[in-house]
C-alpha cells in the first residue's frame, strides 16, 4: 500500500510513531422513549441519583487532577460539575421527565443535544467547542443511568503491546483526554477540533503530540496501521516509506536525547565550567506556577508577581488569602529556597477594577506599583503583613517595584517596620531578618544604585521596564522593536553600574526581566558578575546546561568590551563570535 498523508492543525508539538487505534463513539440509543403515567416521580428520582453519581465521579476526578498538579484538567472537570447544576441542561431534562413523561436517558440526551447544538451554532470557535463538554457531561449521566461501567478504551487499547498507540477519533471528549496515559498513548489525531479545544490544551500540558481538525480522512484509517504523527508540522503519515520512518526515528531520538541531557541538570547547582556558582530561579504569578517551576528545575523564585492575586476579581484579596498563597509557594520549594515576593505592581498595563483607578494618557509613567502603595498604606500593609507571616515558613524576601527615589524606598521600608511591630505586638511569628530589596527598573534608581546599595539588602534588575524607560520606547509598540532591545549598550552600562554598586556594598544582585533567560545575554551577565537569574520556568534547565559549558574567567573581558560598542546589533554579532558555545 502506498504511503498516505493527512494534514491538520498542529495542536501539540513533538513526534510519535505507533499503531493506529480507532476510538469509536459509544452509541447512544436515539429517539424518545417514555415511562408509564404515574412513574414520573420514580423516574425523576432515578435521574437525580444518576446526576449525583456523575457529580461524585467528577468531583473525584477534579480532586485527583488537582492533586497531580494537572490544573488544566482540573478546571475542565470543575466546569463539568457546574454544568451538572445547570438549569438549562439538568433543569430542562428534569422538566422533560416531569411534564412529558420522558425516560431519563432520553430526557438527558435530548436536553444535552439541544444545548450542544445551540452552542455549536454560535459565531465563536471557543464556544462551539464547548458543545463537546456538554455532550461529554450528558453522556456521563446516561452512563450512570445504565449502571454501565466506564469505558476505558483510552487506557486499554494498547495492552500487551510495547508499541505505543496513536488514537484516531472524531473528537476526544474532555474526559477521554484528561485520562490519557502518555506511557500508552503516543499521540492522537481527531477529525474535529481546533487549537483551543480541550483535547489540544491537554495534549500540550501532558506533552504528547496531537493533530486536530483533520476532517473525515482521520476516520479512513484502519486499526493497526503504522502511523507517524508530526505534531510540529501538523502532518500524519500512514504506512510511511522506510526512509521517512528512519528520518522520524532520528528526529524522535534527537528530541529524547535533548530532554535527557537537560534532565541531568535537574536538582543540580548552577555552575559554570570553571566552578563559578550562580542561582537560577523562576518568575511566577501563582502557587501553581511555583509547583511547576520547582518541577522544571528552578532553585527558587526570583519574582513572584503578586498582582495576579489582585486581578480578575471584584474585591481585594485578604491578608489570610495572600498569606496562604505566599506560604504555599514557599512550601513548593522547601525551607531554604529563596522566594522573592514583589509587592503588587498594579497600573501600567495591569488594571484593577476594585481600585477604580482613573484612565491615564501615559500609564507606564503614571500612578502604579509602589506609587499607589505609598498612597494607600492600608492596602500595602495588608500585603506586607501577609508576606511577613509567610516568612515564618520559608526563605521569603520582599521586593518593592518602581522605586525612583531614596525617599520612596525609605517610606516603604518604614511601613514594613510598622507591620513587623504590629505582628510582634500580636505575638505572630515571622522572620525578623527578612531581606528587603528593590527592583531596579527606572534609570533614576540605576543611576543612584551606589546610594541605594548602602541601605537595601539586594537589587533585582527589571529589564523590560528598564529598557523602555532608558530608550524612551513603548515596549507594546511593534514599530519600535529595534529600540526595545536589552543589548543596547546604554542599557548594558546601567546594568553593569548597578551590579558594581551592589558588590561594593557586599549586596547581591539578581535580574528578573526577560533578558535573564536569553542565551545571548547570559555570557555578558555572567561576566559582569550577576548573582541571580530569574526567568520563565521552561528556560531554567537549558540555561543551566548552557552555563555548565561557559568559562566565566574569560567573560569579564567580554562584559567590558560590549559596553563600548555602537548598538545592540554590534553587541550581538560580537558575542556570537566570542562565545562558540552559543551554537552548541
Amino acid at each position, binding site marked *: 500500500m502506498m504511503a498516505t498523508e493527512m494534514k491538520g492543525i498542529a495542536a501539540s508539538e513533538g513526534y510519535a510513531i505507533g499503531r493506529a487505534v480507532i476510538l469509536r463513539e459509544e452509541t447512544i440509543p436515539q429517539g424518545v422513549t417514555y415511562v408509564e403515567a404515574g412513574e414520573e416521580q420514580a423516574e425523576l428520582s432515578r435521574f437525580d441519583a444518576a446526576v449525583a453519581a456523575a457529580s461524585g465521579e467528577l468531583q473525584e476526578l477534579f480532586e485527583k487532577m488537582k492533586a497531580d498538579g494537572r490544573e488544566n484538567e482540573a478546571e475542565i472537570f470543575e*466546569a463539568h460539575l457546574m454544568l451538572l447544576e445547570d438549569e438549562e441542561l439538568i433543569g430542562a431534562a428534569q422538566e422533560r421527565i416531569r411534564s412529558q413523561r420522558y425516560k431519563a436517558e432520553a430526557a438527558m440526551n435530548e436536553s444535552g443535544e439541544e444545548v450542544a447544538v445551540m*452552542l455549536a451554532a454560535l459565531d465563536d470557535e*471557543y464556544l462551539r467547542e464547548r458543545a463537546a463538554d456538554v455532550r461529554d457531561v450528558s453522556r456521563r449521566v446516561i452512563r450512570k443511568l445504565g449502571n454501565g461501567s466506564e469505558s476505558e478504551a483510552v487506557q486499554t487499547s494498547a495492552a500487551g503491546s510495547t508499541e505505543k498507540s496513536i488514537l484516531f477519533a472524531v473528537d476526544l471528549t474532555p474526559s477521554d483526554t484528561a485520562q490519557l496515559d502518555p506511557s500508552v498513548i503516543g499521540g492522537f489525531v481527531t477529525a474535529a477540533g481546533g487549537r483551543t479545544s480541550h483535547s489540544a490544551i491537554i495534549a500540550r500540558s501532558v506533552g504528547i503530540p496531537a493533530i486536530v481538525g483533520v476532517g473525515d480522512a482521520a476516520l479512513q484509517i484502519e486499526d493497526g496501521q503504522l502511523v507517524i504523527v508530526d505534531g510540529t508540522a501538523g502532518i500524519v503519515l500512514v504506512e510511511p516509506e522506510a526512509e521517512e520512518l528512519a528520518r522520524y526515528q532520528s528526529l524522535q531520538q534527537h528530541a529524547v536525547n535533548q530532554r535527557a541531557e537537560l534532565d541531568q541538570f535537574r536538582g543540580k547547582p548552577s555552575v559554570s565550567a570553571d566552578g563559578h556558582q550562580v542561582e537560577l530561579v523562576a518568575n511566577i504569578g501563582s502557587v501553581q506556577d511555583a509547583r511547576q517551576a520547582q518541577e522544571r528545575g528552578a532553585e527558587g523564585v526570583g519574582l513572584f508577581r503578586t498582582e495576579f492575586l489582585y*486581578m*480578575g476579581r*471584584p474585591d481585594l484579596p485578604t491578608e489570610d488569602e495572600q498569606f496562604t498563597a505566599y506560604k504555599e509557594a514557599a512550601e513548593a520549594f522547601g525551607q531554604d529556597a529563596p522566594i522573592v515576593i514583589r509587592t503588587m505592581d498594579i497600573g501600567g498595563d495591569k488594571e484593577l477594577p476594585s481600585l477604580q483607578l482613573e484612565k491615564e494618557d501615559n500609564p507606564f509613567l503614571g500612578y502604579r506599583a509602589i506609587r499607589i502603595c505609598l498612597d494607600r498604606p492600608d492596602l500595602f500593609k495588608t500585603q506586607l503583613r501577609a508576606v511577613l507571616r509567610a516568612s515564618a515558613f520559608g526563605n521569603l524576601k520582599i521586593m518593592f517595584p518602581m522605586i525612583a527615589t531614596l525617599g520612596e524606598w525609605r517610606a516603604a521600608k518604614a511601613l514594613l517596620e510598622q507591620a513587623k511591630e504590629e505582628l510582634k505586638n500580636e505575638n505572630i511569628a515571622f522572620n525578623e531578618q527578612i531581606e528587603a530589596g528593590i527592583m531596579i527598573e527606572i534609570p533614576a534608581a540605576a543611576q543612584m544604585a551606589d546610594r541605594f546599595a548602602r541601605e537595601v539588602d539586594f537589587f533585582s534588575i527589571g529589564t523590560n521596564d528598564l529598557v523602555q524607560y532608558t530608550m524612551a520606547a513603548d515596549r507594546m509598540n511593534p514599530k519600535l522593536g529595534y529600540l526595545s532591545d536589552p543589548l543596547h549598550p546604554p542599557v548594558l552600562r546601567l546594568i553593569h553600574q548597578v551590579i558594581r554598586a551592589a558588590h561594593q556594598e557586599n549586596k547581591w544582585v539578581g535580574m528578573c526581566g526577560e533578558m535573564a533567560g536569553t542565551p545571548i545575554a547570559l555570557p555578558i551577565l555572567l561576566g559582569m558578575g550577576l548573582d541571580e537569574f530569574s526567568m520563565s520556568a521552561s528556560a531554567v534547565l537549558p540555561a543551566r546546561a548552557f552555563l555548565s559549558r561557559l568559562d566565566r574567567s574569560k567573560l569579564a573581558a567580554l562584559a567590558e568590551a560590549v559596553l563600548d560598542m555602537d548598538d545592540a546589533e554590534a553587541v550581538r554579532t560580537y558575542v556570537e563570535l566570542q562565545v562558540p558555545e552559543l551554537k552548541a
Partner: protein
Amino acid sequence: MVEKSYVVANPTGIHARPAKKIVEAAKLCEGTVHIEKGGRKVSAKSLVNVLSIGAKQNDTVTVSADGEKAEAAVDAIGAVLASAEAE
C-alpha cells in the same frame, strides 16, 4: 429591580472563567438574575445561558436582578464584565 449596563472588557469575550464567575456572582442573589445582549435575555444563573449570549469584547450587556442581595449580585457581575482578565 436593579438594572445596570456594562461594556465587556475581556479581549476574548465572556468565556470559561468569566462565565463561571458570573454564575457564581448571580447565585449570591436569591431572586432572579438576568443578563441580556442584543435582545436575548437569559438567566445568569446558568453557565450554558451565560455562554449562549456570545458576548464579545466591547459589547454592551445589561444585567438585572430582583430580590434580596440583587444590588450586590449585579455589582459583582459588573466587576467580572469590566475586568480584562486574561484566560
